[in-house]
């Protein structure tokens, strides 16, 4: 059941290590097992997609990494330090944005650094830098309710980037956006990821999105949630969604994903990463 790291360098320690993670929720009739025996190792700078159907526990896993929820057993460590609460090293981008409605775009982005007591000149400089990076300089003084969904999600991304995060956690961030805005933001996210060299953990239920974005797709299966397999995506970037290679890989991932949905019995996890 041990994960098999597929990384090129073994010299640098992994940024995130999840070992033997279990999560149970209390329910009306006993407990519900949400996650069973999850092991993942993620290296600095990797773009990981957690892919799975609804209810497979992928969001729960992300929330445990973020520190919003506690695991029942097992550990999550960032550079060897156990995660026990939310922290600025793991910045979260929510599907419903969770911007502070009383703050302007600029103040939303500078919220984190200000709370952490970063000197004002630095805060101002970094805020302007990330405003510019997500293309919202012209909208800096607007309030969230005056923005479109895509713009709100750009603010949410810039807010986390400006806070000097190590790991960017994204919980179906583009799920509520229309197709055009979504593909625009996917492109921008890849650009940002290349520029900042961040580690990204991206939760999605879209196979195409996972194959388009990830270095590595972690396929999860439900009931209880666990890792089915990890698939390395070696396609060159920028990726062409109409190329035969892309479609072959997408078919492959889809087959693995739907196997659990269609079969009567869940298949035991196979390690082939």
């Amino acid at each position, binding site marked *: 059941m041990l994960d098999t790291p597929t990384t090129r360098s073994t010299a640098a320690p992994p940024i995130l290590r999840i070992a033997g993670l279990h999560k149970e929720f209390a329910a009306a009739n006993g407990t519900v097992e949400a996650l069973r025996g999850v092991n993942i190792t993620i290296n600095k700078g990797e773009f990981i997609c957690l892919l799975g159907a609804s209810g497979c526990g992928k969001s729960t896993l992300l929330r445990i990494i*973020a*520190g*919003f929820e506690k695991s029942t057993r097992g550990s999550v460590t960032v550079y060897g330090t156990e995660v026990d*609460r*939310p*922290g*600025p090293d*793991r*910045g*979260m981008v*929510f599907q*419903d944005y*969770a*911007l*502070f*409605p*009383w*703050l*302007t775009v600029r103040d939303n982005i500078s*919220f*984190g650094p200000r*709370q*952490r007591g970063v000197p004002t000149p630095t805060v101002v400089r970094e805020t302007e830098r990330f405003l510019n990076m997500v293309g919202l300089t012209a909208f800096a003084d607007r*309030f*969230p*309710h005056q923005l479109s969904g895509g713009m709100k999600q750009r603010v949410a991304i810039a*807010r*986390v980037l400006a*806070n000097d995060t190590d790991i960017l956690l994204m919980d179906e961030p583009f799920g509520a956006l229309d197709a055009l805005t979504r593909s625009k933001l996917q492109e921008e996210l890849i650009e940002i990821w290349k520029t900042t060299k961040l580690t990204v953990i991206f939760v999605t239920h879209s196979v195409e999105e996972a194959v388009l974005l990830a270095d590595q797709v972690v396929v999860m299966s439900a009931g209880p949630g666990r890792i089915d397999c990890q698939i390395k995506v070696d396609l060159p970037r920028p990726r062409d969604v109409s190329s035969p290679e892309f479609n072959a890989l997408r078919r492959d991932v889809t087959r693995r994903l739907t196997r659990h949905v269609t079969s009567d019995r869940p298949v035991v996890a196979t390690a082939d990463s």
Partner: protein
Amino acid sequence: MSVQTEVAAPASGPATGTTPTATTNASTSIWQQRAKAAALASVVPLALLLLWDVMVRWTGTRLIPPPSGVAIMMWDFAFGGIYDDAYSASLPIHFWKSVQRVYGGFFLAAATGIPLGLMLGRIPLLRAMLDPMLSLLRPVPVTAWLPLSMIFFGLGPKSAIFLVFLGAFYPILLNTVFGVKSVDARLFEAAEMLGCSGSQMFRAVVLPASLPSIFNGLRLGAAFAWILIVVGEMTGVPEGLGAVIMDGRTLSRTDLVITGMIVIGITGYLSDRILLSLSNYFLRWSPQHNA
């Protein structure tokens, strides 16, 4: 200007129908709407004044003066020169005393109600300790506190301030608690993952997020404060709009009573407008509240 646009709009309207016409139409209709609103709002008061005047003449009562009598009293109360008695030109002093007591009690209520409400909404231990007692005291009418408040604070302005405080405290407290409890949990998570914790959370998230509800509470509280000023000034204070009304009653000077009522009504209304514009300013980020 509005006359010009009114003339211009119908002439060019049907012929061209271009954007400039549309904008003049829009500005005209705003003025028309305002005039219409003012006209509609004054129908009932004017009808009541008329009814009042007719009824006084018809019944020939001497207990209630006609509107003109009250108008003369109001002039004398404000500027003097007609009756030249103890109440002539005394509006400023009564007004000022009442305003001090109303806002004294109101700010005291806000200064205790808001912080307490923020903490009650966020700290379960505090809620478990205080909520039952506060719920028990809440149904007690403020007027029932009158004898006790006179024992606590003596005859005088302190007692009035205490009663106003009691009346304004509960709406402010309860609305603040409600506001805190209805803050989207996601915002706390967002703040936590950005590095905000503990007491920072109150200032950075809890307070601004519950501001819409707090302003509701403040407006209700201020309204109660003006309602209670009459009760508050029953406690043997010589000056104040409530005291004037009580004096008017004792002296059977109904014109004085009605004058006091009108002044309180107008002042209460203006004070609410001030709170409303403050609320609109501080809640300009909220599409629901920026009226």
